[in-house]
């Protein structure tokens, strides 16, 4: 199918909106837009970060998911208590594939689930005593933990427990950081507020009051912190090697494979590097104001964006780092040229639709373009206006933008646009696979990864090829409806 014109895309949005009742139609219309590169500001064309309509299938998460699952969860040497009923923690346990180094259950606790397992009794009489007891038990059973965070689930806010008081008391008793996080799931419209609350908790309970603390190492002029990289499938490691090769010293990883000590040391760095802008820009802005640390956004998906980012990062430092950046780009050139030479002919011209969280809907576009593919639709689950501002220029004209897309809308768009590949989450995966459309999970890389950095790009290209040119897609349609196709031949030629 050829690229759609602006009129066709607008007509498609109108057609999809047709089924809604009047009020819902009016509301949803604000969240769907046709991209127009001439716009500077997204608020002219799209509304975001608003409450989802009752009755639609939204793909969003909750504030607890944003705090425990995204920001705090990957900090490996702390124990994160899912404070409340058992399910929230258990059903999200270890699902995000934040890799880390350490012995689980001894000095790291990333994939374990700690919960206060609320029952009726705790709701009626309050859970503060139980919480205090749990923390003592944790201290006894896991003495190598470096701190505890209390991740509130919905009931905590509803029954009005004073977790801050319990945290302060426990902090005195065990002498380690105890951080209460008020991230009850009902707060806000999506996980995005959870990120913000988690950032504020780090600001108030980790960074504040630690200014004079000895770092235990000598600061160098090349210290940087990697912020907003959750090490999914090893992403942060693939990013870190590039930064270190160009001569920088990564002293903190927020928060994939990160530790509380690294976080405490971050105010000593020279530059904060932000990968996931949506979930961690708050703390970067705070550090800029309070400690005068500049921050920049970077993008390590695909060689074009990596080179761009490395040069932009290097521009903040002296010539040795700038030369280092060029050296790194040159060093990997043969590697990524080979990747492109191998996969581009197999992927050229394929059309992709994305629907991910708060960063990848714009960040991975460059990587697809490096492989000769085209992104024809993109959208954020929980992005804000400033995310769409940054997206407009990345996307082609007359492509689809959809904010907090509903299950129905997404299916209808896909039926009409007929993309060759969809990148979204697990909840969307099987619907589209059953429709016979190749699908990659772009939240946790479909059990693969890393996708960041030059090493990650090779894996990214392989995975996209493996999915798109898989002969199975020809078997999804009934035999009398399939035309003789070349996909089998393409796969056989690999």
């Amino acid at each position, binding site marked *: 199918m050829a690229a759609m014109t602006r009129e066709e895309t607008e007509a498609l949005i109108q057609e999809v909106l047709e089924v809604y009742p009047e009020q819902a139609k009016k509301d949803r219309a604000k969240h769907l837009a046709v991209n127009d590169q001439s716009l500077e500001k997204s608020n002219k064309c799209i509304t975001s*970060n608003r409450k989802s309509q009752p009755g639609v299938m939204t793909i969003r998460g909750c504030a607890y998911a944003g705090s425990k699952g995204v920001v705090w969860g990957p900090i490996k040497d702390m124990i994160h208590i899912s404070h409340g009923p058992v399910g929230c923690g258990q059903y999200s346990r270890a699902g995000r594939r934040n890799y880390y180094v350490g012995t689980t259950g001894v000095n790291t606790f990333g994939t374990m689930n700690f919960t206060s397992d609320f029952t009726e009794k705790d709701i009626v009489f309050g859970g503060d005593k139980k919480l205090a007891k749990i923390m003592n038990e944790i201290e006894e059973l896991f003495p190598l933990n470096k701190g505890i965070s209390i991740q509130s689930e919905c009931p905590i806010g509803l029954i009005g427990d004073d977790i801050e008081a319990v945290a302060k008391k426990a902090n005195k008793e065990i002498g380690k950081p105890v951080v209460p996080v008020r991230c009850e799931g009902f707060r806000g419209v999506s996980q995005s507020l959870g990120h913000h609350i988690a950032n504020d908790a780090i600001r108030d309970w980790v960074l504040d009051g630690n200014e004079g603390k000895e770092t235990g190492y000598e600061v160098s002029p090349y210290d940087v912190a990697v912020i907003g990289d959750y090490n999914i499938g090893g992403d942060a490691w693939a990013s870190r090697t590039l930064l270190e090769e160009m001569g920088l010293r990564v002293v903190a990883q927020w928060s994939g494979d990160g530790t509380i000590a690294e976080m405490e040391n971050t105010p000593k760095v020279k530059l904060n590097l932000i990968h996931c802008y949506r979930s961690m820009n708050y703390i970067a802005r705070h550090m800029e*104001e309070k400690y005068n640390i500049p921050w920049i956004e970077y993008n390590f998906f695909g060689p074009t964006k990596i080179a761009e980012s490395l040069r932009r990062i290097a521009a903040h430092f002296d010539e040795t780092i700038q030369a280092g950046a060029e050296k790194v780009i040159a060093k990997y050139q043969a590697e990524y040229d080979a990747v492109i030479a191998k996969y581009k002919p197999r992927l050229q011209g394929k059309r992709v639709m994305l629907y991910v969280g708060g960063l990848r809907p714009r960040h991975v576009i460059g990587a697809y373009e490096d492989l000769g593919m085209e992104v024809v639709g993109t959208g954020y689950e929980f992005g804000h*206006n400033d995310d769409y501002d940054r997206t407009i220029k990345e996307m082609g004209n007359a492509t689809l933008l959809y904010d907090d897309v509903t299950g129905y809308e997404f299916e209808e768009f896909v039926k009409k646009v007929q993309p060759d590949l969809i990148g979204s989450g697990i909840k969307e995966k099987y619907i589209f696979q059953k429709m016979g459309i190749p699908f990659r999970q772009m939240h946790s890389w479909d059990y693969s990864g890393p996708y960041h950095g030059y090493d990650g790009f090779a894996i990214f290209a392989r995975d996209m090829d493996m999915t798109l040119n898989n002969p199975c897609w020809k078997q999804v349609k009934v035999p009398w409806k399939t035309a003789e196709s070349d996909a089998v031949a393409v796969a056989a030629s690999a």
Partner: protein
Amino acid sequence: MPSVMLKKNGEGKLVFYVPKKDLEEVAESVEFDSPDKWGGEVVLSDGSKYYFEPMDVPPVFPITLRAKRIDD
């Protein structure tokens, strides 16, 4: 009265950020911007206007200040 985070960007221009509104704009003009007086009316690149209480000494950026929105 939103809290506004102000900082200077690479070109030395004032960047205006209101966290609650996800508003990130470059300030086109500042009414008083001299060593002995800073503040007044600030016009953003999208045309909206905000008012800061004038100060005797220009603040050190980045800084969070309270601003008044001017609707016209």
